[in-house]
């Protein structure tokens, strides 16, 4: 049965299923345990608990939904427990490394704001059964989108991916500040919240920067525990929010009260947007996870993104089936991985086991569901720094002209606006809530749209011609640099191409006829062809000796050919018509 499905999947989506093989990764120096490594058991468990503590703050969304649905304390507890179980299952599905499902990186799941607006609307329309049915519908849409991702990769070039990641970081930081300040309805800051957040954050920073070993690795968990203690000391720890009046059983299997689904046609459009927004969010997170595992990362691996989206889609379907809101990958967890240097995929399996156990242990679940807001704020603010910086680093590897600067600058500003005017946008149309409510989604949609508009008039193939006796290296350099910025080419690759052209022109010298330089670009290739009136230059495999170079200009010409060979990924020099052509190819 499975093999039949597999065969059909391969026929339907040619090129997708076969291409899950990734190129080798270059391990970043600061990484303690990379994605394919398994830490020692104690480290594995502690690191998983650290993620669980961070991920649990997203349980606030099911709690909000449960309260809006007027669930009794008993049923609310079941709802939260089932949500924990769903979180564990979803984490495995998103992180797994299989042929069709999972991105292969540590990208734990969490409940997100993206689902909140439409889910609240669904609760008001027909209660939780509508939420579950529509969540499953969004999951099915994501499953359908997954194999199509590679066909739309032109919409998300690396600089846009970097922007998306930076906005993810920014959004986490804004949320962190909101939690840390404990702003009252009158707009006042709660000084106790600020003090607790400061203690918690300072602990994380000090341990991360000035210590080594376990203290550094578990800095977030230790910071949260200290913040938890400070919250108890300041009297802001409120367990009653998650504890029913009749108390808690030590062990309890959650009852499946929620096995009921109702679709509502009015909600198809909002949940379709939720599916799209969730896909963009996940792509930003998985791209970050890829990058922190590979020093030589240059662009997202779309096979991994497709698998991640398929995993996320299947996870949302399962969430809908067992009775929980929809999930997405969690940006803060990626930031935590960066901060601690543990990106091992094995963590995902331990996280899922911990959540399964928590779902059966109400007191532990209650303790996690009531982590005080300033402690959550400190953890979010801390992890945001790492996510944000990852995004900036990706953007700055590319050359940017005014078109790209407008795309990035405007989109970043839109993301800021979504954060600043959050309360205003909350009153916007339900259909647009998934977009307006999320800085990430608004910023990404703005970036994708502007990028498409700004592509108008950018040619993929350009040329410059020099008349005999008027070859100008500086003009050739300027021509290539400007064009590289239009294309947002990688800075390092373009520098090599500039050297190749200058070295070629230098060795060709004054020529009797015109010299033409053609350059063409797509995201994966940069090709430069130099056509000239003259004989092909020699491209030796071996460097001429120092003695040969010093002895004659012929030695220097051989060195030029050798340098050209070394600077390009592929090179050819041949007769072409009445003249010759040097073809320099660079993998981009």
């Amino acid at each position: 049965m499975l093999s039949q499905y597999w065969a059909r999947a391969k026929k339907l989506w040619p090129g997708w299923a076969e291409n899950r093989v990734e190129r080798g990764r270059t391990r970043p120096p600061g990484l303690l345990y990379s994605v394919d490594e398994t830490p020692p058991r104690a480290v594995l468990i502690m690191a998983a608990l650290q993620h669980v503590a961070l991920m649990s703050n997203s349980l606030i969304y099911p709690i909000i939904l449960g309260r809006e649905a007027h669930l009794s304390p008993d049923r609310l507890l079941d709802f939260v427990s089932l949500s924990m179980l769903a979180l564990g299952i979803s984490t495995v599905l998103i992180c797994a490394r299989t042929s069709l499902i999972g991105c292969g990186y540590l990208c734990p799941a969490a409940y997100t704001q993206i689902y909140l607006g439409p889910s609240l609307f669904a609760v008001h329309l027909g209660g939780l059964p509508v939420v579950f049915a529509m969540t499953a519908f969004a999951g099915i849409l994501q499953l359908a989108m997954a194999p199509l991702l590679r066909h739309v990769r032109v919409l998300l070039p690396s600089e846009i991916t970097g922007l998306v990641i930076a906005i993810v970081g920014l959004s986490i930081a804004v949320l962190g500040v909101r939690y840390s300040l404990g702003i009252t309805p009158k707009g006042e800051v709660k000084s106790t919240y600020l003090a607790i957040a400061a203690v918690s954050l300072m602990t994380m920073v000090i341990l991360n920067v000035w210590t080594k070993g376990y203290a550094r690795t578990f800095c977030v968990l230790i910071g949260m525990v200290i913040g938890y203690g400070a919250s108890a000391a300041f009297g802001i720890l409120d367990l009653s929010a998650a504890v029913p009046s009749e108390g808690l059983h030590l062990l309890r299997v959650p009852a499946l009260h929620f096995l009921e689904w109702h679709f509502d046609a009015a909600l198809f459009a909002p949940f379709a947007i939720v599916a799209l927004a969730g896909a963009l969010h996940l792509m930003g997170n998985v791209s970050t996870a890829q990058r922190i595992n590979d020093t030589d990362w240059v662009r997202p691996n779309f096979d991994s993104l497709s698998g991640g989206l398929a995993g996320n889609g299947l996870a949302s379907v399962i969430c809908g089936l067992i009775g929980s809101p929809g999930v997405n990958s969690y940006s803060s967890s990626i930031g935590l991985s960066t901060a601690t240097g543990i990106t091992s995929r094995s963590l995902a399996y331990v996280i899922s086991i911990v959540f399964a156990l928590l779902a059966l242990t109400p007191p532990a679940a209650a303790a996690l569901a009531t982590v005080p807001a300033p402690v959550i704020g400190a953890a979010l603010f801390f992890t945001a720094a790492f996510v944000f910086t990852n995004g900036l680093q990706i953007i700055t590897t590319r050359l940017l002209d005014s078109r790209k600067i407008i795309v990035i600058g405007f989109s970043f500003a839109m993301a800021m606006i979504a954060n600043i005017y959050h309360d205003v946008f909350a009153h916007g149309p339900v259909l647009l809530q998934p977009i307006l409510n999320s800085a990430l989604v608004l910023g990404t949609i703005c970036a994708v749209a502007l990028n498409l508009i700004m592509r108008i008039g950018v040619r993929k193939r350009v040329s410059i011609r020099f008349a005999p006796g008027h070859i100008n290296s500086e003009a050739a350099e300027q021509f290539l640099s400007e064009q590289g910025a239009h294309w947002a080419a990688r800075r390092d690759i373009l520098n090599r191409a500039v050297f190749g052209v200058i070295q070629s022109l230098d060795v060709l010298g004054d020529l009797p006829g015109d010299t033409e330089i053609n350059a063409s670009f797509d995201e994966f290739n940069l090709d430069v062809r130099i056509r000239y009136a003259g004989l092909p230059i020699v491209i030796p495999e071996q460097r001429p000796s120092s003695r040969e170079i010093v002895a004659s200009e012929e030695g220097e010409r051989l060195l030029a050919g050798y340098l050209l060979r070394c600077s390009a990924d592929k090179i050819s020099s041949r007769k072409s018509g009445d003249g010759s052509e040097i073809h320099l190819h660079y993998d981009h």
Partner: protein
Amino acid sequence: MTSSGLIITESRSGDICVVSLAGRIDSSNANDFMTRLNGLISSGEKSILVDFANVLYLTSAAFRALLVATDEAERSATRFSLCNLASQVRELFEMGGLVDAFTILGSREEALARMG
């Protein structure tokens, strides 16, 4: 002295003659550059330090000029070193397998301390 695209400045630090370069070194100015270095060596300088801090790029012609000067320096028992190579310039030396053909030192201060 200005050669097309290349500015060459000389200064002294004790017994060391420091030759500072700024701009591009290619076939249009490599001969001038080589003549200048050979002139210093034949004038009796015993320690020459070439500072690459402001060199934007160099081509095979520049490498030949430097190799010729290195040969001349060896014949005249002159210490001849390069310093302050920017990363993209150093990459060209590495790409051409020419790092070992020269005495390449770090910053100008380090180089002066080593040669002094």
